[in-house]
């Protein structure tokens, strides 16, 4: 109920601003002219390549681009029947879920704890944010060193627990390394947002809650967490996108250019088949599938999830 009311309220606001804007521009072409740079960037860098990918996905091309044959939907039916592609799809789902869950969960925990720190708060926060500056391939490279088969510190640590960890040999060990590095890399950005979200909660609300409930756990779940929901929803989208797309550099460095029997995400497969393998048609079909998945995901997120979020 509350959500719907909030939504209605916003729509009304939207109309209001729209009206003001319209009256501000006397010449109807001016706003369009002002939008042209932005629109042309979107058209050239997003719609044109996307359209080209859709077109290419219906063709079979030789790598050097000397000839291409129209094959209709064959590139798509090949994907649907490839167990290997379906495996990548399953792995991507698991990878995205795990990375999103842990990078949000750990960041929230750290933010809640950091929020309580009074002395030296600034230094703690800066230290926790540092990792954000590390580029994904560098993060991947550090992962490779830490998880190295013979000399990796983390490998030795895991072995002392009796886990015979072998990066690049065992499928799930490699997956574990990819997920760990990806989570580690994403925690700082989540932390920054959660922390500012927490600090935006008014003290009066917290004090009122303290009178009602003595348990800090209970207060967190009943009051703080729902008030953080808008931040959380925003971060959820950011993190899913991150796990799907931005982890490419990490995965590439961890598999060291030899996909082999290592786990692969859908995005990495587009690269492997299209660039490494020279099969542009098949790779474009995978890109199109990916575009559709992202489209569905976005619609689902905004239609279903956002309605449950209460914006104050």
């Amino acid at each position, binding site marked *: 109920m509350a959500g719907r009311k909030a939504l209605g309220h916003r729509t009304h606001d939207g109309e209001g601003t729209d009206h003001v804007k319209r009256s501000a521009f006397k010449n109807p072409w001016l706003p369009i002219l002002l939008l042209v740079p932005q629109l042309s960037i979107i058209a050239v860098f997003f719609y044109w390549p996307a359209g080209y990918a859709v077109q290419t996905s219906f063709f*079979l*091309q*030789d*790598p*050097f*681009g*000397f*000839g*291409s*044959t129209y094959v209709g939907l064959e590139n798509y039916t*090949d994907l649907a029947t490839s167990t*290997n592609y379906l495996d990548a799809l399953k792995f991507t789902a698991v990878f995205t879920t795990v990375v999103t869950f842990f990078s949000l969960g750990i960041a929230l925990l750290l933010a809640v704890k950091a929020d309580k720190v009074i002395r030296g708060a600034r230094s703690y926060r800066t230290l926790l944010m540092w990792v954000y500056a590390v580029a994904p391939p560098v993060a991947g490279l550090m992962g490779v060193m830490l998880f190295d*088969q*013979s000399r990796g510190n983390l490998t030795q640590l895991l072995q002392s627990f009796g886990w015979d960890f*072998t*990066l*690049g*040999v*065992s*499928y799930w060990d490699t997956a574990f390394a990819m997920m760990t590095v990806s989570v580690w890399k994403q925690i700082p950005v989540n932390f920054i947002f959660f922390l500012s979200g927490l600090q935006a909660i008014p003290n009066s609300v917290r004090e009122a809650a303290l009178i009602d409930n003595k348990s800090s756990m209970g207060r967190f779940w009943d009051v703080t967490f729902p008030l953080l929901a808008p931040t959380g929803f925003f971060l959820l989208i950011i993190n899913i996108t991150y796990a799907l797309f931005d982890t490419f550099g990490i995965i590439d460095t961890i598999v*060291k*250019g*030899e*996909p*082999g*029997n*290592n786990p692969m995400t859908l995005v990495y497969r587009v690269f*492997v*088949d299209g*660039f*490494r*393998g*020279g*099969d542009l048609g*098949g790779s474009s079909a995978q890109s199109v599938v990916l575009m559709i998945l992202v489209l569905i995901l976005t619609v689902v997120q905004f239609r279903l999830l956002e309605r449950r979020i209460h914006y104050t």
Partner: protein
Amino acid sequence: MTFVKTTAVAAAVSLTAVAAQAQTQIEWWHAMGGQLGETVNQIATDFNASQSDYVITPVFKGTYEETLTAGIAAFRAGEQPNIMQVFDAGAATVIGATGATIPVQQLMSDNGVDFDIEDYIAGVRYFYADNDGQMIGMPFNSSTPIMYYNEAALAEAGVTPPATWEEFAEVTGPALRDAGYIPLAQSHLPWIFTENFFSRHNIQFASNDNGYSGVDTEIMVDHPAIRAHFSALLEWQEADLFHWYGGGWSDNQQPFENGEVAMWLGSSGSFGGIQDRVDFPFSATYLPYWEAVTTEPTQTFIGGAALFAMSGHDDAENEATAAFFEFLTSSDVQYMWHRETGYVPITNAAYAAAADDGHYERFPAAEVGIQQLTLPAGEFTRGYRMGFYVQIRDVMNREYGRILTGDTSVEDGFATIQEESNQLLDRFARTQG
């Protein structure tokens, strides 16, 4: 993008303005990193110093796969280099694209450089040639898989390097294991245990003469001999006679250099690097074979890569490329390349020069690769030519990894490789139509 392009064009224009007075500039994209890259730069510097008409600039483009990808993308954008290094698995792609390259044999004769394919070593001559025997790519870093061994470890275990896999399984392997070593590791399952496995035993690898005489090729990898070999690998792995460190090349080479692994199957081109790094005495010998499969083992063929002259450049630049190829194949340069890296010399003259200089008396292991390449040939020892082969190797690596980690059986793994490879070959054949 536009900015980068403008800057690049501006830079190119200013460079050409300076160079136009006298010298022709050409560019060479290669995939030789580390110690190999330094030797490549040395060759380029020597070429530039040897004459004043041409200047070659070597550019390191990453791994073999990355170099090929970059070259194809550049070709499609009309920005291709004069010379591009393409590795064995990419050969079909680049040779199949008629018009993308100038056959090296033609380039040489067009520019008045003497060329006789018979000057080249037998195992090297026809791998990058078309079906009429015309050389398309100039073999550059030619290597072949050989077996390196730690002499101290073998002496400690009281064994000699095995000639056959039977000997390894019964004698060498167990003795080395009992002496506290991991007896065997290798660095490239598709290259060493597949392509060269077929060549060493003279078994047909693909239809159409291993793919040389047509594009409608079918791979014949699902053969009882190789299935038996992988079943043996599994047994050896179980018995601590063999260890697989994953698909990464250096992950498998490292333990040999650390002295944990006693025998390592790698490239003859790894010789220079190992020599720089290890402090124990090591040597090398031929790739073992299965006596149960053949009693007359045949030669292996070259791996590594070749240099292709890309089309779309003016005559002056092509002349410079031909001049560079002539310099590169001179026996002095070939001997220097061979001595520094361990890659085999590609001409008979360079091989003779190395022998005359006493190189093989000082380093017997350096001759193993070339000797193995000149072993008796067979019907199926020339090599292979298959399109989308980079992906086929990826399929092999994936299934081999699954076999060795117990995710699939040898039978299912090979059936999958055969099926998926043939789908890829069929796709490639249709792009060539």
